[in-house]
C-alpha cells in the first residue's frame, strides 16, 4: 500500500472544498477548545477541593488514638516521646503537627457558643490554613502561649475583639469540666468560611496544662505530593502500631467522592461536545464520498482495493480531526491563559463553600488532559469515518460509471 499516495489523495480531497472544511475545522476546534478549557476549570476545582480539605486541619494523613473519632475527648489521646520525629523521608514530608482538639464552650459577657478548641504548636502549623489566613492582632507565638486565636465570624457573634477575655469550658483528663479565662491574641479571617465559627486555637502546652494531661489527640501530616500518601501511611502504621492512621479520603469521604465525580465530569463534557460534533463530521464525510462516486468507481475499476478505499476515507477523517484538534487545543490553551488570574466566585460564596471550594477558582492545566482530549478526538474521528468508508466500499464500479 502506498501511504504517500493515500496521503496526497486525502489532502487534495480536503482542499477541494476549502470553505466547507474550514467550517468543519472550526466546529472541531470550538468543541476541543471548549472541552479542554472546561477541563482546566474542573482540575482547578479538584485542586482547590483537595487543598481546602487537606489544609482544614486534616492534612494528607492523620493519626488518632482508637475511639477518638467517635468520642472526641482528651481521654482518647496518646503520648509522644520527647523530641519525637516521624520516620518519614524528608523528600516526601512537607510538615507534621501534633495537636489537641476537643469540643469546648466559649463565652463572652454576652454570648455563648460551641467550638472546637485546638491546642497547637504554632511553628508546626505551617501545614494548615492557619499559616495562610490574615490575622487581626497577633498570631500565637509558642506552644506555651496562653492566649487564643478566634475566627472573625465567631468574634462578631460573641461581640468581642482583640485583647478582650473569653471564658472557655471544656472537659479535662479526669472527666471533670475545667473553666478558664483566655485573652484574645488575634482574630483570623478565613474568608467567611465555616472554619471561622468552629476553630479556636491556643498553645498546645498551655492546653495540656489546663486539661491536666501530657498527651495529644492527633498528629496531622502534610506531604509534598498527594500520591505519596499510600507509602507514608504504611510507615505511620508501623510507627503507631495501636493507633488509627487515616488518609484524607477516609477522613473526608464526601470530598473524596466529589473529587471522583469531577473526574467523571471530564468524560461527560467530552461525550456531550463530541456527540454534537459527530453529526456534522459524519455528514461531511458521507458527502465527500458521495460526491466522488464516479471517481471512486473509476479507481475501483482500475483495481484499487477495498483496503485502499477504506484507508483513504479514514485518513481523510483523521487529517481533518488532527487539524481541528491542534487548533482547538491552542484555543483551549489561550482560554486557559486568559483565565490564569483565576475566576472570582465570591458572588456565590456560600454555594461554593457548600461544595468545598474557595471563592477563587484557579484553572489548572494538566498536559495529560490535553493528550487525553486529543487522543479521544482522534479515536472519534476514526469511528466517524467507519460508516462513510463502508459507503465508499459499497460503490460498484459499473453503477458508478453510469452515474
Amino acid at each position, binding site marked *: 500500500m502506498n501511504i504517500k499516495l493515500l496521503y496526497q489523495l486525502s489532502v487534495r480531497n480536503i482542499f477541494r472544498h476549502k470553505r466547507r472544511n474550514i467550517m468543519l475545522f472550526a*466546529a472541531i476546534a*470550538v468543541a476541543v477548545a*471548549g472541552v479542554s478549557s472546561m477541563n482546566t476549570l474542573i482540575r482547578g476545582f479538584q485542586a482547590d477541593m483537595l487543598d481546602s480539605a487537606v489544609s482544614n486541619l486534616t492534612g494528607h494523613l492523620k493519626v488518632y488514638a482508637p475511639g477518638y473519632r467517635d468520642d472526641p475527648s482528651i481521654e482518647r489521646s496518646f503520648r509522644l516521646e520527647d523530641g519525637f520525629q516521624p520516620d518519614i523521608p524528608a523528600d516526601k514530608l512537607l510538615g507534621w503537627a501534633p495537636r489537641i482538639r476537643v469540643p469546648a464552650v466559649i463565652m463572652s459577657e454576652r454570648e455563648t457558643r*460551641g467550638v472546637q478548641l485546638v491546642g497547637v504548636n504554632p511553628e508546626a502549623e505551617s501545614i494548615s490554613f492557619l499559616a495562610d489566613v490574615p490575622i487581626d492582632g497577633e498570631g500565637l507565638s509558642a506552644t506555651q502561649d496562653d492566649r487564643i486565636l478566634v475566627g472573625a465570624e465567631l468574634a*462578631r457573634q460573641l461581640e468581642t475583639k482583640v485583647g478582650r477575655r473569653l471564658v472557655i469550658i471544656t472537659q479535662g483528663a479526669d472527666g471533670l*469540666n475545667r473553666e478558664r479565662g483566655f485573652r484574645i491574641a488575634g482574630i483570623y479571617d478565613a474568608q467567611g468560611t465555616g472554619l471561622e465559627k468552629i476553630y479556636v486555637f491556643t498553645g498546645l502546652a498551655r492546653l495540656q496544662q489546663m486539661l491536666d494531661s501530657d498527651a495529644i489527640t492527633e498528629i496531622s501530616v502534610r506531604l509534598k505530593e498527594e500520591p505519596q500518601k499510600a507509602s507514608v501511611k504504611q510507615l505511620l502504621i508501623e510507627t503507631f502500631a495501636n493507633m488509627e492512621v487515616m488518609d484524607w479520603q477516609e477522613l473526608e469521604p*464526601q470530598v473524596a467522592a466529589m473529587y471522583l465525580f469531577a473526574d467523571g465530569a471530564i468524560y461527560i463534557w467530552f461525550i456531550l461536545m463530541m456527540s454534537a460534533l459527530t453529526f456534522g463530521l459524519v455528514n461531511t464525510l458521507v458527502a465527500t464520498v458521495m460526491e466522488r462516486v464516479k471517481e471512486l468507481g473509476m479507481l475501483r475499476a482500475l483495481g484499487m482495493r477495498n483496503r485502499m478505499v477504506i484507508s483513504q476515507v479514514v485518513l481523510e477523517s483523521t487529517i481533518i480531526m488532527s487539524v481541528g484538534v491542534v487548533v482547538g487545543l491552542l484555543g483551549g490553551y489561550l482560554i486557559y491563559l486568559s483565565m490564569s488570574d483565576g475566576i472570582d466566585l465570591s458572588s456565590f460564596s456560600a454555594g461554593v*463553600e*457548600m461544595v468545598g471550594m474557595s471563592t477563587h477558582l484557579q484553572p489548572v492545566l494538566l498536559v495529560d488532559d490535553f493528550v487525553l482530549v486529543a487522543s479521544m478526538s482522534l479515536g472519534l474521528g476514526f469511528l466517524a469515518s467507519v460508516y462513510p468508508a463502508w459507503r465508499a466500499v459499497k460503490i460498484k464500479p459499473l453503477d458508478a460509471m453510469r452515474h
Partner: protein
Amino acid sequence: MLVRLIGLAWRNLWRNPQRTWLTVSAIAFAVFFLVFGRSVQTGSFDTMIDNGARILPGHLQVQHVKYSDDPRVDYTINAAPALEYFASRDEIEYVSARTQGFALASMGARSFGAQIIGVEADTERHWSRIASMVSLGRYLQGRGEAVVGARLARNLGLQVGDELIILGTAKEGGIAASSVTLVGIFSTAQTQLDRSLVQIHIDDFREAWMLGNNEAHAVVVMASNVTRSEVEASLASTQLESVAVLAWQDLMPQAQQMRDMKAVSTQLIFYVIVIVVGFSVVTTFMMIVFERTQELGVLIAIGMKPGLLQVQLQLEALFLAMLGVAIGFIVAVLLIVWLEETGIPLPVEADEIFARYNMDPRIYPSFDWPALQMSSVLMFVGVQLAALIPGLRIQRLQPVEAIRQQA
C-alpha cells in the same frame, strides 16, 4: 409564489434524506441536551430546596430584624399576630413558633455546647425531617422531653430515657436551666446538626429562658409558593413592627447560589454546543448549494430571481430547525415524563454526599420551560444564519459557468 417555494423547499429537503436526518439530529441533540439537562437540574434543586426547608429552616421565617445577623436570645418577636395571619391563609401548609438559643448540654460529668431549639412538636412532627429521621426512640410528644442528634448523643454517652441537663444564658443575662428526658435520637447525615442540635418543647424553652407566652425567635412557615414580598406587604399592615421576613433564599443562601452556579455552567456548555452545531449546519448548507450549482444556474438562466432562491434556502433552514427542535423536544419530554415517575437512581456510594446536600437517592426531573424557549429561539436564529452564509454564493452565481460545472 410562497406556497410553491415552501413546497419546493420541503421537497428539496428530502432529496438527500440521510443528510437531512443527520443535520436534524444535531439540532435535536442540542435542544434535547438543554431541555433535559435543565429539567434534571431543576428537579434536583427543587428536591434539594424542599428537603432543605424540611430539615429545619422551613420555606419562610418571620424574625426580629436583627436576629438573622446576630442571633441573640433577647431578639424575640411577639408570635401571636404572625401565627394568626398565616393561619388565615389557605396556601400555608404549616406554621408554628420556634425559640432557639445556645446552651451547654450535660449528662453526668460530660458537657457539650449545643444549639437548643424549642419547637411546637404537634405541628413540626408533620413536616420536619428531624421528626422523620428519629432512628432511636420517638419524636417529641409533650413537655419535659428532648430529642438530640446522634453524634451529640454518642459524645455525651446519652441513651433514650436518660436525663439531660441544659444550661444557658437566658434573656437579659439570667441563667437558663432545664432538665429534660431524652425520648429520641435522630441522624440526618449532616454532621453539624447531628453534633449540635437538641430539640425540646417550646414551653420548656420559654420557661427556662424566661420568655413570655407568645415570645418566639422565629415563626416558621411551610408553603412552597408564597413569596417574601407578598408576606412582607401584608404583614406591614398588621401591628407587627420591626420584624424581618426571610424566604428560603435567605435561610439557605448556599442552595440558591449552587443553583445559580450550575445554571451558569450548563448555559456555557450549551453555548459551545450551539456553536459546534451551528458550524455543522453551515457545512450542510454549503454542500446543498454546491450540489445544486448546476440546477441553480439553470433556474437563474430561465429568469428565477436569486433572491427567491435565497428565500427557498431559508425555508429549508426553517424546516430543518422545526424538525430538530420538535424531535429534541419530544424526546426530552418523553424521557422526562417517564423519569418523573421512576426517578433517576444515583450511585449508591454517593448516598452520603447527596444526603449532605439534602438530596434524595433519586432525581426526579421537572420540566423547565425557559430552557425550551431559549434553546428553540437560539436554534431557529442560528440555523437561519447558517443558511445565509452559503446562500451569498447564489447571489454571485454566473449562470453560464454554473451550468457548465460538474456536480
